[in-house]
């Protein structure tokens, strides 16, 4: 691990991880960047495996590769319920993993889960690493001080073949959140507030480094939620410097180093932070944690967010013609009127899950609200834990009973209704409060309408049958 060199320019955390992974940079070319951990799932890998076969080459470091099935897998009934098309994708992953020696966590097995829940849970995700996956929410792993970003299928093939990627260095962008979050306000609200401030493209070309008192105060799970949605402001990745919480989270995890090796990792990790005076070339914003309210989105991208008790923006008052056109298009799709509040608006579906909010603390936050109550008539509530382990832990705590007694559906782990590839979807025209990460048109099923919010807000809304402020449903 690099030591600060006397007289050297101060470096950001991004600089340090980047510098430690550059294999070579030829003049006029992007850098050859070494990848420490490559996560693979069934949707973005089949064509990459085919590409390797076409070239007659193998996987260079199967020991630095981990595979899971999560995107199209059923959350009830197991693989037997899959249609032929989906079964072919699962079979392609099984075949690729077997042929190239990649460890695969099969559906329902211990360790299996949503790819970005699985990595940290196993202790495969660790500070200072470079981590990639054919999935934009790979940014999640940045919560551990790892440079983690999503790639396309061609790049999946590149990493499988060479353990490297051709990359140009992104710019470090500081997102500082001072103060503390108010009671009832979560990591999800924090990141929705950041995205609302920067807009959906505001982080393009950058890697966010989240810092400040409010970030330090977050649990590892909340930090993962925050980094997860960095991509929703256009940033390739989110980063948080490791601290005592990071090491405690990792200690004892199945794939984490043990004993002296673990202590050596902790010691080496003390340099994994931005130096005093380091320049954030991408930009810098500061938020006051105390001023962040529970957030909800009103439109068709994650940047269209507002405090839950605010009114939907009125396009008529917007000066910028581009913003006005986007708002008008979004409101037309959502069926909302500018200037109206969302609180009290009747909803049809509540989804608790996804790589953003399916960890144990998310399920606990939702369970705390529905405990002893009923999901409102006419509302369907789906609770999908992020991994097989989380499901078991939740059941050991009796959370499954709390949800089922309230009338919610308690499902098996997977991406489920966030991407709606497995049959779990929001029917056309229905309005969902979802703890996932994208409210794009049709994201949760053709014609679906999505309001993104925290687990507490989603659960409160399920109980009320309408958009509700979690601070008022105790």
């Amino acid at each position, binding site marked *: 691990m690099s030591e600060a060199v006397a007289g050297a320019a101060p470096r950001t955390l991004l600089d340090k991880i980047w510098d430690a992974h550059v294999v070579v940079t030829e003049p006029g070319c992007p850098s050859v960047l070494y990848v420490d951990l490559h996560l693979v799932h069934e949707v973005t890998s089949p*064509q990459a495996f085919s590409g390797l076969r076409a070239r007659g080459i193998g996987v260079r470091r199967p020991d630095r590769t981990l595979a899971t099935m999560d995107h199209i897998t059923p959350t009830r009934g197991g693989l037997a319920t899959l249609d032929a098309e989906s079964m072919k994708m699962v079979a392609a992953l099984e075949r690729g993993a077997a042929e190239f020696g990649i460890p695969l966590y099969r559906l329902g097995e211990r360790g299996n889960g949503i790819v970005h829940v699985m990595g940290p849970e196993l202790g495969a995700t660790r500070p200072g690493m470079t981590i990639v996956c054919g999935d934009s929410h790979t940014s999640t792993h940045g919560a551990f001080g790892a440079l983690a970003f999503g790639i396309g299928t061609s790049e999946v093939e590149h990493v499988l073949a*060479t353990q490297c990627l051709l990359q140009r260095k992104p710019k470090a962008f500081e997102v500082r959140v001072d103060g503390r979050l108010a009671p009832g306000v979560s990591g999800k609200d924090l990141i929705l507030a950041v995205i609302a401030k920067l807009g959906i493209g505001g982080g393009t070309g950058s890697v966010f480094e989240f810092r400040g008192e409010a970030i330090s105060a977050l649990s590892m799970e909340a930090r993962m939620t925050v980094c997860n949605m960095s991509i929703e402001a256009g940033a390739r990745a989110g980063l948080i410097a490791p601290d005592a919480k990071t090491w405690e989270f990792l200690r004892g995890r199945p794939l984490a*180093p043990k004993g002296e090796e673990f202590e050596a990792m902790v010691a080496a990790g003390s340099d994994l932070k931005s130096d005093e005076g380091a320049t954030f070339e991408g930009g810098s914003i500061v938020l006051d944690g105390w001023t962040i309210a529970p957030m909800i989105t009103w439109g068709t*991208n994650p940047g269209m967010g507002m405090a839950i008790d605010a009114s939907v923006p009125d396009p008529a008052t917007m000066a910028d013609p581009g913003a006005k056109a986007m708002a008008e298009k979004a409101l037309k799709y959502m069926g909302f009127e500018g200037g109206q509040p969302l609180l009290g608006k009747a909803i049809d579906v509540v989804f608790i899950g996804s790589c953003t909010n399916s960890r144990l603390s998310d399920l606990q936050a939702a369970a705390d609200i529905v405990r002893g109550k009923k999901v409102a008539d006419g509302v369907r509530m789906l609770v999908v834990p992020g991994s097989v382990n989380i499901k078991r832990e939740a059941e050991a705590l009796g959370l499954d009973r709390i949800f089922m007694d309230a009338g919610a559906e308690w499902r098996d782990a997977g991406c489920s209704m966030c991407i709606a590839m497995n049959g779990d979807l929001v029917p056309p025209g229905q309005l969902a409060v979802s703890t996932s990460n994208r409210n794009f048109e049709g994201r949760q099923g053709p014609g679906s309408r999505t309001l993104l919010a925290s687990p507490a807000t989603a659960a409160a809304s399920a109980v009320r049958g309408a958009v509700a402020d979690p601070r008022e449903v105790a």
Partner: protein
Amino acid sequence: MSEREKFGEVLSHAVPLAVDNIDTDQIIPARFLRVTHKDGLAEVVFSDWRKDPDFVLNRPTSAGAKILVAGDNFGCGSSREHAPWALVAWGFRVVVSTRFADIFRNNALKNGLLPVQVEAKVVQKMLAAIADDPTTVFEVDLQRQVLVMPTGEPVRFPIDAFSKKCLLEGVDELGYLLGHEAAIAAFEARRGEAQPAGASG
């Protein structure tokens, strides 16, 4: 649509899609990602928007166009490479926008789809010209890095030298990476590499 096909000069009319923040879920909805190959994606590009008979891709004037003129921040959201695969399958070779999402840009360049980033006023001029006459032809000359407007006015666009070379000469990026095997092995040796999956960097 071989990714190693050389990128030639593009001389074509253009499809106007003046919507900002077009995400890859719109370009190809997730339900069409259940494929283990890259075929047939032309049918599903902008699938949900094409349900509207008046959507621009449904108009006869769009047939055969190789250029898409889009709003700001094109290709945001999901990393699915199926988005450029589908655009290329439909026939597009160039997307013009004021900004491209990072992952989409990378994916496009690997599939012979050229992201042409220009100022908003250029997009406005293109849209006005297309509104006036949908058969208006634009030229994209990657060698010179210019988009030529119907008036003959050249508009320079940025592209890094490596991507340009890859597109023009059909250079295979994976071949380039494989050529660095010795350096990669030396890098691993330097780090004392002999550790299990995901050893700390």
